[in-house]
């Protein structure tokens, strides 16, 4: 047997494999926080990446502007049609907002599920191999970002904060196929229908709301927003519209396919939503999931 132990390469290989398995095991377990060497590397890489992200933003912005110019006419037509509608809506929404505030003042309610604090951030990079769809943004714990906060663009919700380091944090997009990625949502029907987003269908590129009771009236074209009841996100973040509804195998429940409102390409600026309403205890949330 001495021959076996003398073989240096074999020993290195074996030790390497053991280390590898240990590392994978270490990083796969449920972690609340990244270890400090990881945070350090992330922040350093984030700094360098942000230097490169800026010129990329401006080049992409220029190309986008040219494309916008080409579509100006059509867009203008559509916008003109919408404009009248918009004025009406604006007045209505102002009136309702004021009324809402007055009513809240009467019952002395300061925060509700919809109140939030927006934290704007820029995207500095995106996971390049795209197995796990993540973005890295240039704000971290120091700016008050915590895991599980919702992340939106102007179009709608795009994902949640997966992990944070001091100066940057990682956003997991809704398009990741992750069973832990569940969001409590409300479908805006005559009476709100509640459900959970349970995953993403890569083929049709739609989010799935499973297990909607078969007697609830969910139809194509209805809007889906966060309900605020899951404990993580504020109420009323726009997620998308229902594209189709299918009964499940046994006909007891139905599955709704939601077309996400946000565009998942060319994301530059995002807003992290901090919910002001008290969070439930962490233990309770963990048990729920």
């Amino acid at each position, binding site marked *: 047997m001495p021959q076996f132990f003398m073989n240096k390469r074999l020993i290195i290989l074996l030790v*390497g494999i053991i280390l*590898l*398995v240990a*590392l*994978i095991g*270490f*990083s*796969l377990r449920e972690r609340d926080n*990244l270890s400090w*060497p*990881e945070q350090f*590397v*992330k922040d350093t*890489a*984030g700094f*360098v*990446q942000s*230097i*490169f*992200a800026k010129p*990329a933003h401006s080049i*992409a912005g220029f190309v986008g502007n040219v494309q916008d110019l080409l579509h100006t006419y059509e867009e203008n037509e559509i916008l003109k049609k919408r404009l009248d509608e918009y004025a009406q809506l604006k007045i209505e929404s102002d009136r309702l907002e004021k009324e809402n505030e007055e009513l809240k003042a009467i019952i002395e309610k300061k925060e509700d599920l919809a109140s939030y604090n927006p934290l704007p951030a820029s*995207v*500095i*990079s*995106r*996971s*390049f*191999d*795209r*197995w*796990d769809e*993540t*973005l*890295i943004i240039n704000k971290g714990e120091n700016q008050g970002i915590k895991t599980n906060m919702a992340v939106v663009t102007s179009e709608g919700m795009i994902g949640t904060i*997966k*992990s944070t380091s001091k100066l940057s944090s*990682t956003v997991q997009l809704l398009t990741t*196929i*992750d069973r832990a990625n569940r969001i409590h949502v409300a479908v805006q029907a005559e009476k709100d229908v509640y459900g959970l987003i349970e995953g993403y269908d*890569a083929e049709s*590129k739609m989010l799935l709301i499973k297990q909607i009771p078969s007697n609830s009236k969910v139809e194509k074209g209805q809007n889906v927003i966060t309900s605020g009841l899951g404990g993580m996100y504020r109420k009323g973040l726009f997620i998308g519209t229902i594209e189709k509804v299918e009964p499940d195998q046994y006909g007891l429940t139905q599955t709704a396919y939601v077309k996400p409102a946000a565009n998942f*390409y*060319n*994301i530059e600026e995002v807003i992290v939503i901090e919910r002001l309403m008290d969070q439930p205890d962490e233990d309770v949330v963990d048990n729920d999931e």
Partner: protein
Amino acid sequence: MNKKWWIPIFAIIFFDIESIFANYFPVQLISEDWICVPRFLLSFFIFIAVYYDKKLALIYGLVFGLIMDIVFIDILGIYLFWYPAIIYGVSKLMKIIHTHLLILAFITLLAITVLEFGVYGFNFILQITDMPIEHFVNNRLFPTLLLNLVFYLLLAYPLKKYFTLIKKVKEEEEGMFQS
């Protein structure tokens, strides 16, 4: 400035191009299902291994593999394993095969294929993805190979020139010390 300092600078530049690539490259205009993964850093390391220094390439593979794992996937060990393993394999292979840019193009594509399958295998075992293999080959592997072939064709000649130049300098320096 010594010309070999360009190696780490190039490595950092390629790393950052990879990291903003996915957000800007408009592959969805060609086909919504395609996913092009930039593997520029790996091609660069293969160049180091073949034209300059095998050991240096292995060290770069280890360091950047670890950085990629930490920054992008939060699972340590995937690229940390595959980068050095592939660089080692390529440098072994190049001992048998005559070094020529066209042959190296083929070897690079082969290396990227191995890496793609390797990462896919890891993700499949760890149940991060449930993508069937035909889907993987059609929508990930081929677009990725195409993209990296374009990259290779653009940069192979300048990179080869650069590395042969600094190798010559290095050998001259070593010769000086020996004499």
